């Protein structure tokens, strides 16, 4: 509750009118806490809760939080099944009980109001409401409002939390910011556990209602934001309460699977796949359940396939997944957009891993090398820095591929490239009969370093493999910066041909097509 309050203090001092409302609310809150007679003032505070001005609302939220926490701390709220408010007058209750019942009703009102406020436009208000609600949850946990079956049983205020989660998983509004605030509560094991259960319930309910008629992108976004914020603790630290952990794992698994079995928009696929291998797969009790999802994603093609590769790799590597025609698919993933994709580094890191096996057939490796070098003809320079050593590494690992860059026995007469770019099957593309003329072409690349790297094929390759891990993330902008910072040893060379016109100069290409208008 600290942030809204402090902000109030600072901002209200400047304006007198604000000051009055604030002091008004505060004094009323104090009165309510101190004196039971002033209980009716709570309605004034509720009025402020519904006020227009955000400042007042925040102030009122603070006051509510103070009042009800104090009351619950004192045990002033009615415990057990709540009688109707109307029956309050008729029923035979003691004054104390009446007060408790009255305040309990006000508490319920307050929770309702706060839930409404969570859909407010102002983030501060939302945040204040959320924090207050979570405070209530914790206060309720300490002094349960429902009647207790066993004394020592730990009773979690499930209802309030459910209301909060429902508020967070709004179908109309993007709650990502609020959910990130909510993450700090998710650090708590019990909150996390109950939230997981509530989320899977919510997902089931909402999708059942939607009946696949339409996708609910906002809702799904919110769910994903919440889900991705649920970080399962690492297994080692939780070995002590193993039973609970297993329970939590299952809830986690159920929640994700429940979410993933529905149709998702493609950008949601990407988002999930980015975090899948790190924050989801390790916490599943049966990761193999993800196979369906991953294969479906892998078949979509494009960037999603690239990303699904990562999860598939984990499954293949650790869970013994046998994927038919994996390499063929990988081969077909390679197209010109690979170098421009955002996930280039991740893809090539994995591709390097997959192709590092020395048991691969030569034709396959040769096909990869040839295809990559063919694609390099359209690649930006930063990608070339990575792809050339990649190809060299392939040839180094599989010395039989050396014919790609060195074919001394062939009749030294020119022939057309036998490689078939359009062929999907690496076994049929005749890569082994070809040579990497593309690399020879790149020796004429405009960037000096690319050109130098490409000249390596003129001599036998060194034994040592190149380390491409650092080059994977290398971007063109970094290349640009590096070129700028190159130390200048000799004086800068200048153009010696004098200039009199803007559009003249080498080739006069620009002047030929454009006029100075």
């Amino acid at each position, binding site marked *: 509750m600290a942030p809204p309050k402090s902000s109030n203090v600072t901002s209200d001092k400047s304006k007198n009118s604000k000051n009055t409302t604030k002091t008004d609310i505060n004094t009323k809150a104090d009165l309510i806490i101190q004196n039971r007679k002033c209980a009716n003032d709570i309605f004034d505070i509720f009025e402020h809760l519904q006020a227009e001005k955000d400042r007042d609302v925040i102030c009122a939220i603070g006051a509510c939080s103070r009042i009800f926490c104090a009351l619950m701390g004192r045990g002033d709220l009615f415990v057990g099944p709540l009688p109707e408010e109307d029956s309050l007058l008729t029923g035979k209750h003691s004054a104390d009980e009446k007060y408790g019942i009255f305040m309990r009703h006000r508490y319920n009102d307050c929770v309702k109001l706060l839930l409404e406020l969570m859909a407010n436009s102002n983030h501060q208000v939302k945040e204040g409401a959320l924090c207050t609600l979570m405070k209530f949850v914790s206060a309720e946990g300490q002094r349960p409002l429902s009647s207790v079956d066993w004394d020592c049983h730990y009773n979690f205020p499930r209802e309030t939390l459910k209301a909060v989660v429902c508020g967070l998983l709004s179908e109309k509004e993007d709650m990502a910011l609020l959910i990130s605030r909510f993450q700090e509560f998710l650090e708590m094991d019990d909150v996390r556990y109950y939230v997981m259960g509530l989320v899977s319930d919510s997902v089931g309910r909402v999708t059942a209602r939607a009946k696949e008629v339409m996708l609910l992108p906002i809702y799904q976004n919110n769910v994903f934001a919440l889900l991705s914020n649920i970080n399962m603790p690492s297994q080692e630290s939780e070995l002590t309460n193993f039973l609970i952990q297993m329970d939590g794992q299952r809830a986690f698994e159920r929640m994700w699977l429940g979410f993933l079995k529905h149709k998702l928009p493609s950008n949601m696929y990407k988002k999930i796949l980015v975090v899948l291998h790190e924050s989801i797969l390790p916490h599943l009790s049966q990761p193999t359940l993800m196979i369906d999802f991953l294969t479906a994603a892998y078949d979509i093609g494009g960037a999603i396939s690239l990303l699904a590769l990562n999860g598939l790799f984990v499954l293949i590597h650790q869970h013994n997944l046998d994927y038919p025609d994996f390499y063929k698919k990988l081969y077909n993933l390679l197209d010109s957009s690979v170098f421009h994709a955002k996930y280039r580094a991740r893809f090539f890191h994995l591709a390097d891993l997959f192709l590092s096996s020395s048991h691969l057939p030569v034709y396959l490796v040769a096909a990869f090398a040839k295809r990559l070098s063919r694609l390099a003809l359209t690649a930006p320079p930063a990608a070339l820095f990575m792809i050339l050593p990649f190809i060299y590494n392939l040839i180094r690992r599989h010395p039989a591929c050396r014919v790609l860059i060195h074919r001394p026995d062939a009749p030294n007469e020119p022939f057309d490239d036998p490689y078939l770019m359009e062929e999907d099957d690496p076994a049929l593309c005749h890569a082994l009969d070809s040579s990497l003329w593309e690399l020879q072409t790149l020796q004429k690349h405009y960037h000096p370093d690319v050109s130098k790297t490409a000249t390596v094929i003129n001599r036998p390759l060194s034994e040592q493999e190149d380390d491409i891990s650092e080059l994977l993330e290398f971007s063109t902008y970094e290349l640009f*910066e590096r070129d700028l910072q190159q130390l200048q040893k000799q004086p800068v060379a200048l153009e010696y041909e004098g200039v009199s016109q803007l559009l003249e100069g080498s080739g006069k290409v620009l002047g030929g097509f454009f006029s100075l208008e």
Partner: protein
Amino acid sequence: MGKPQKKRGLADKVRKTKTSNEIKNNPFEVKINRKKFDILGRKTKHDVGLPGVSRSKAIKKRQETLLKEYKQKSKSNKFVDRRFGEYDTKMAPEDKILKRFALERQRMQDKKNIYNLNEEEELTHFGQSLSEIEKLNDVVDSDSESEDKGLLSAEFTASHFGGGGGLLRKKNAEEEGDGDGKPRSRQELIEELIIKSKQEKHERQTQKEEARVLTEKLDQDWKSIQSLMARNAPKSVCRVEESKPKAEEYDIMVRELGFEMKAQPSEKMKTPEEVAREERDRLQKLEADRQRRMLGDMEEETSKKQSYLSADDLNDGFILDKEDRQMLSYQDGKWNIAEEDQNADDDDADDADAGDDDDDGGNNDGSNDGEDGDDDDQHGESGSEEEGSDAESGHSDLDSEDVVEDDDAEVLRKAESQAKPHCTLSKEERLAGQEEAKAELPYTFPAPESFSDLRSLLHGHSADKQCVILERIQKCNHPSLAAGNKLKLQKMFGFLLEYVGDLATRCPPELGTVNKLVPHLYGLCQLFPNAAYLAMQNVLSDSAHDMEEVVEVKGRAALPGLGMLIYLKIVALLFPTSDFRHPVTTPALVYISQLLTKCPITSLEEVTGGLILCCLTLEYVTLSQRFVPELVSYLLGILHLAVRDKGSLGYRVVPPFRLTGRHCDLLVTSDAAHAESWSRIPLPMSGAQSLKLKDDLERDHYKLSCLATCLDLVKRCSSLYKSLPSFTQIFWPIRILLSKHISLEGHSSVLQDLHREALEAVSESPERPSPLVFEKTKPIPLRLFTPKIVEVLDFGKKRGSSKQEREKEKLKHKYRKELKGALREIRKDTKFLAREKLTEIMTRDAERKRKVKELFGSLSTQEGEWKALKKKKRK
């Protein structure tokens, strides 16, 4: 003693020369040191020795030195010979004797013997001896007087120097002379001497004064008489008088000739052919240089110094001569310094300007300062006049003119010559324009301190006037005029660059003005390459940084404005694009690559911008023929925009283009009928910023122009990359696109021709590549066991050590040798001394024995006598 010695010495000389020859030839004297090995080429000093001679020499020397010391060893008194010149070895014995004799006589004379009326007494006239007057013809010369004064009398010097020996000696002599006279004390003597010398001096002065008075009187008398005498005489006097100033004049002329600077060999006037040939040579040299840089050889041999086109160059083919001049200038210190420092300054952009003024030589400094003064209050009438004033100030002396020629005028003229090409188009017009400008524009401009300064300076002027202003700023703040000007102009390059960008981004971009400003940028860049490249790098990095920020957020960015495209063009104009690696053009190309891959096309404006970018890329690689993959992909993407039917394509486009989508039909014409009325015109560059196309017809025409440009670019690209082994693979998407998806039926023939040509260009398969093989390398030779033979060029010298070590070794050796020699000498000395002592003892013993014997003898005789007497008595 001296005389007989001398005589004997002479005789000895004669004898000795004889004997030394004899000795040398005497086989019994000569000892031959036998060598164990005969080594060719080694000079030996000690193969023949004369041990007898050397021993006797050594003994003699010891006798003269050691023995004497030994004998003086325990003696406290010393005998000093005070005769005149006794210890003066330089004086010949004859002179000594003569002098002594003279002194003796003098002493004799000093003794006042009034009764001695000897004829030896000199006769004097006014204190001067008559005989001397007779001998020397008296010349009353003022110079001689001073010389006389400077001289000290022999007596005086003798008494003062040589430890006062002279005085004492004199005393001795006097004592000798009058032995009975009382000896005077030293102080008395000195006083006497002083009085005497003063007296003498006074006498001399009075003498001379009187003599002068007398001669003058005589002269006057003579003149008065002269007039009475014959007439010839005065003429001769006149002539004599005239001749004197004449001689002076002549002297002056001779001296002038001597001091005048030697004529410098001037440049021969060149025939047009020669000029053309030189120009060609220069260009060839520069081209070769460029080729070398293009191939990247430079990276390997960075240490090799290169002579780039200096900023001082006149740009008129004088490059070779310039170097000649520098060599010549070694004979003439001043020139040399001026030239070299100028060059050095140009190289070193950060250098403070203080040096520049010094370069001009001391005598020119003054004139330069004067000019500065002019700059401050009221400058010369115009910029061009300033040059004149330079020259004028130079007329004051010959040296500075040359310097001014070299330093200031050359660069100024060069700056002008940069501006010339477009100005000379119509000279009259330019002159008229200048006249006009003169009437309006101020003549001096302060160098702008900030970009806004420059903008306010140039604001509201026409392009030509802006040029004039810039020219004047450059002239007023020429680096040679004041310290700090260089920095100002360096800054101005950055401001001008910014200004150009500003002009290009204005709403109708003022490209005409930019066009006029480009030569100034080029000129400044040539003057300050370092500042220029840093400014250019800044521009590039700022823009790239901005774009990177956008790309990181969105994954793509918008094409930058026309300003950036102009900057890229300027980079290509100022710096060589063909270098293998260049600090400006390489990053610029990388930046272009970024633009080509990260900026999707969403409008016709961006199509224009993209086409400009393609043109620029092509210009960058035209010379070096380097492969830019992004360019081909981009052209494909632009052509794809013109494809009407996007279904079933046989090719793939590369990002930033997409196969289908919102902006994929940008170049598809809306109405096929519009195509017929189309005619090709060059696209306006301002189209990259904003296009004002009124209706569909114009819009379609513009689209077709873009398409035509793109096709042309494809054609050029394919001709550029024809030699690449993967030519077919590079261009196959474009080939498919052109052959299958773009049909220009019903379009104008120009476009159809273009399409056909482009298709032909990309379809032709040049030579098919042969399979790759490694470069043939030299086989590594087998290890052999033949010994390694090292050629030794300096025999007898220790090798394998540094110079210092060798020096140390040498010194050690010398020390050892000296030590040995000293020990040997000491040993010989002690031997000698021992021998001497022995002989001394022997002689003493012999003497004693003799004396004892004598005593015994005398005693025995005494005894005998006594006995005989006793016997007598007894008798």
